[in-house]
């Protein structure tokens, strides 16, 4: 099988599984979960093969399939089924396939009610996630992007905790409100391109749009910065809510806390990255001037999110809510790297997307495992659990270290690259605000270590404290607390492997991302430089004018 076919198989296998679940789901929980595990494992195997074959040192799209979907070459609307992998999407694609296996394993015992529907939705969600990262057509991307909302809406709303209905609707509406504006922005890009470049024909091919928009910019007849800013703002609405940037993050803690474990793992691990991915895929390369103008603002929002998320996380009493707020902080780091506008920061931000998926996905899975044992997530009710569940404690510590950036693990590589990238920008710029941002970001690292380690210390070390057997929230009397089962081990082990692997051999991962990100960066850098020289010229003119006066 060649790589194109294999990529298509990877994408459509979960969809086929979900359709099969319509019938299989009636046979009960046992059949549903086994079948879903099989499907996700097969998908993961296929995805792993494609990712392993992904070539280094090339920014070309790998395993490209390009067939007409709506309209065709030369017709008014040309929406194509165009899928392929490039350096930006390849690791998120692999991560999605991997985290789905984890999601199935952590739901194994937890989901008893309407299991067929649950696993069907999970597979649909996998289809959507994989699709987002391979889509090379703008409409195809958007269809997958919004489609992911539907299964997650049901996952949160049916299998979530007490406040699930409100959380599901809030999550859906918040995301949709942003993404419909994104939709209008994307349409504006396409139509500007159609009017000015493409003889009125609407093309939705992302590579073509990117190339043409940049060509017109360098030729001097590109989109005006004002229009770019408007479109950038429209795109920003959707992507910023998805990331989520401060102050539009309020849906996230709620959705995370109410979602079932699998939902939290997928939401934190994959879905949030669609926002950052959108910035790198669309906003930055297609609207470089606007991105350059918005850069300080976005950096400020990111760093506010880093510090705010960390401070709020410190104050949490619920483990899941704490990790949810840590996501706000960590995604701030991603954005900081991406918008530092230098190769190091961009790569660090892109790597941090994967790192956060691994560590936070793992942490949410562990919280779910603890909840299954003790039926509580209150930090104050737990303590010294390392004695009871040493293996679980080990994984908790590993993912915590990864999350706070301990050298030797993946988080360190990403964080250092992001921070160094940010400091580079700060030093090379004559504006002092970048230095303030960089320094604030470093305090975020310190705060991050504080709240995470404090959490681990309170829950896993010190004197043993378990919820009382008689209290309503405690586990049933006589139910022994056991350490990790093999099922749980296999849910976390793959994540742990990559946490260590990326930490030890980051070049393996970076080298596959580098060419794509380098082109993105070059494009922005050239525009930013052009802008700066223009503003310099303006300034000198102004100075001359004032001196004349």
């Amino acid at each position, binding site marked *: 099988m060649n790589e194109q076919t294999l990529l298509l198989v990877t994408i459509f296998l979960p969809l086929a599984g979900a359709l099969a679940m319509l019938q299989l789901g009636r046979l009960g929980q046992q059949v549903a979960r086994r079948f879903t595990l099989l499907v996700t494992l097969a998908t993961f195997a296929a995805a792993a093969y494609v990712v392993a074959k992904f070539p280094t040192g090339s920014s070309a799209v790998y395993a490209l399939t390009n067939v007409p979907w709506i309209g065709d070459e030369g017709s008014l609307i040309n929406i194509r089924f165009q899928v392929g992998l490039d350096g930006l999407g390849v690791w998120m694609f692999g991560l999605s396939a991997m985290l789905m296996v984890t999601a199935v394993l952590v739901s194994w015992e937890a989901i008893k009610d309407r299991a067929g529907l649950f696993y069907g939705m999970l597979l649909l969600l996998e289809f959507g996630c994989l699709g987002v990262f391979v889509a090379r057509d703008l409409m195809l991307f958007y269809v997958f992007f919004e489609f992911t909302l539907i299964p997650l809406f049901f996952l949160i*709303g049916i299998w979530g905790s007490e406040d699930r209905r409100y959380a599901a609707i809030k999550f859906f509406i918040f995301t949709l409100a942003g993404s*419909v504006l994104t*939709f*209008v922005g994307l*349409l504006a890009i396409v*139509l500007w391109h159609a009017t000015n470049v493409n003889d009125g024909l*609407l093309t939705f091919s992302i590579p073509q749009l990117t190339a043409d928009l940049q060509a017109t910019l360098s030729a001097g007849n590109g989109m005006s910065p004002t229009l770019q800013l408007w479109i950038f703002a429209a795109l920003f609405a959707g992507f910023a809510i998805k990331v989520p940037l401060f102050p539009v993050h309020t849906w996230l803690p709620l959705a995370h806390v109410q979602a079932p474990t699998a939902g939290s793992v997928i939401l934190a691990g994959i879905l949030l990255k669609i926002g950052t991915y959108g910035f790198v895929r669309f906003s930055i390369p297609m609207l470089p001037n606007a991105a350059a103008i918005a850069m300080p603002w976005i950096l400020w929002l990111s760093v506010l999110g880093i510090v705010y998320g960390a401070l709020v996380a410190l104050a949490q009493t619920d483990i899941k809510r704490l990790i949810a707020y840590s996501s706000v902080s960590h995604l701030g780091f991603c954005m900081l790297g991406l918008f530092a506008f230098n190769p190091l920061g961009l790569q660090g931000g892109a790597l941090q997307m994967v790192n956060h998926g691994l560590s936070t996905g793992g942490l949410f899975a562990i919280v779910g495992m603890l909840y299954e044992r003790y039926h509580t997530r209150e930090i104050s009710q737990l303590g010294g659990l390392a004695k009871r569940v040493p293996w679980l404690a080990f994984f908790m510590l590993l993912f915590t270290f990864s999350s706070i950036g301990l050298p030797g693990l993946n988080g360190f590589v990403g964080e250092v690259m992001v921070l160094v990238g940010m400091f580079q920008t700060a030093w090379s710029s004559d504006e002092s605000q970048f230095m303030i941002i960089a320094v604030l970001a470093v305090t975020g690292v310190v705060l991050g270590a504080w709240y995470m380690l404090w959490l681990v210390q309170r829950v896993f070390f010190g004197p043993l404290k378990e919820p009382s057997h008689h209290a309503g929230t405690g586990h049933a009397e006589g139910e022994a607390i056991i350490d990790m089962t093999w099922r749980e081990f296999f849910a976390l082990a793959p994540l742990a492997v990559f946490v260590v692997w990326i930490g030890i051999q980051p070049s393996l991962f970076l080298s596959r991302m580098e060419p794509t990100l380098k082109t993105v960066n070059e494009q922005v850098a050239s525009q930013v430089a052009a802008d700066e020289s223009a503003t310099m010229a303006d300034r000198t003119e102004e100075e001359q004018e004032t001196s004349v006066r």
Partner: protein
Amino acid sequence: MYVDLDTIKLLWPELVLVLLATWIYIGGTIQQGRWWWGLFALAAYGVSGHAVAVGIVEANTVSGPLTPDSLGYVVRFTAIVLGALFTLVLTASARKELASETIATLMLLICGVMLVGRANDLVFLFVSLELVSIPTYVLLYLGRRDRATSEATVKYFFLSVLSSAVLLYGLTMLYGVAGTTTLVGPGSIQSELQSLSVDAGGLGSLTPVALVLIIAGLGFKMAAVPFHFYAPDVYQGATNANAGLLAVVPKVAGVIALIRVAVIAMPNVAEFAWHVTLVLALVTMTIGNVCALWQQNLRRLMAYSSIAHAGYMLIGVAVAMAMEASGGISGTLFYLLVYAFGSLGMFAALASLGSDEQEVSRLEQLSGLARSRPFVAGAIAVCMFSLAGIPPLAGFWGKFTLFTGAVRVATDSGGQATSVWFAVLAVGGAINAAIAAVYYLRVVAVMYFQPSREANFGTNVGARVVMLFAAVLVVALGIFPRSIFNATEHAESSALREKVAAQTIQRLEAIATSQQVP
């Protein structure tokens, strides 16, 4: 306007429906029974549909008051499909002794829509619209006999008559300005108005007045703000099947009539027209969506939803007015189709749950439906997500075509002010899509997230079939929307071709006269 044997031939599909409807009225007094006449009506729609299909190949001639463009064909096929589907719903839910009358009246109504679809003459158009209105009064009254229904019917009747009068006033004024009743073609309203200035203080200055009256009259049919007040009350008072009919069929007729008259035939007021329509679109969407947020009665909720969707359709109308061949007409048509099937699916599902003792009308009656009736809940969920415009369902592509049109005008038009207006329209539409999602999701949430309660739902087989058909269609068109894209684009270009042809003739005439002068 002339009528000859050819015109009668061209009208054959509609005549079939009228003749067979009469047959059902008469036969119904002798032979009672729902399915007997239900199947008969389905066969009639089959014959009529076949006649339309044959007509495509046969005639491309303009004859009398009929236009042969493919916009008309799209509308007629849609009308026939909707007719057949509503026949299924109504056959199973109408009272047994009135089944034949209900079915026959529906056939006349559908015939009216088909005629509106191809009308090229003011008088013909008005009479066709009346053929839509009058059977609607009868159908509303046939549905149920209680105070609420009587009130709803009377309310609808009086307001509809009033709107017809307003429309007629607008049409006469248009006739007064142009001096002809033909809409498009050589020597038509469209070619007369082409050269008529609005500001001259002469006859031309009456065209904006005519336009406003026409929009008001047709706005009632579409349930557009500020002519929407009847919708919630009337829908609530009607049966589920009839409310579905009201939500879909008059809207199709109103939108097509608006396209035929205000978009294609009145070029000299386009500038004024798109301003009016754009503001109406924004206001209609917003009022419809915001009012729907608090509704607990399902038919009221769907009434406000139908108002909001009328606002969306007006986006396309405004786009078509502001810029020729901009995809405005095809977008409106596309949206009309996906709205019709999404809405039909919802009302059919509600009708299918009703039994003789109890009708489903409050939102909480649906709670836990996902457990007790998984297929109905699934179909409703699909329709709700489609109406909310979530991909990959058909409703998403409807929004896509409309927003594309608005953004196209915003990026491509010369004027700065026009760009801003249409950018505001696109963003307003987008924000409204998010507001609308709140109440559509509420319906889904009640069905899926709440415990089920004991309820004896009915089993209305006809409505169940229609519901499944609509849901499957909404999904299928969402994944493979190419066919409707092609059909609606073709409809737009063909509807405009008549216009372009007329313009060319006029230009040639102008050249000829200018050459004669020296």
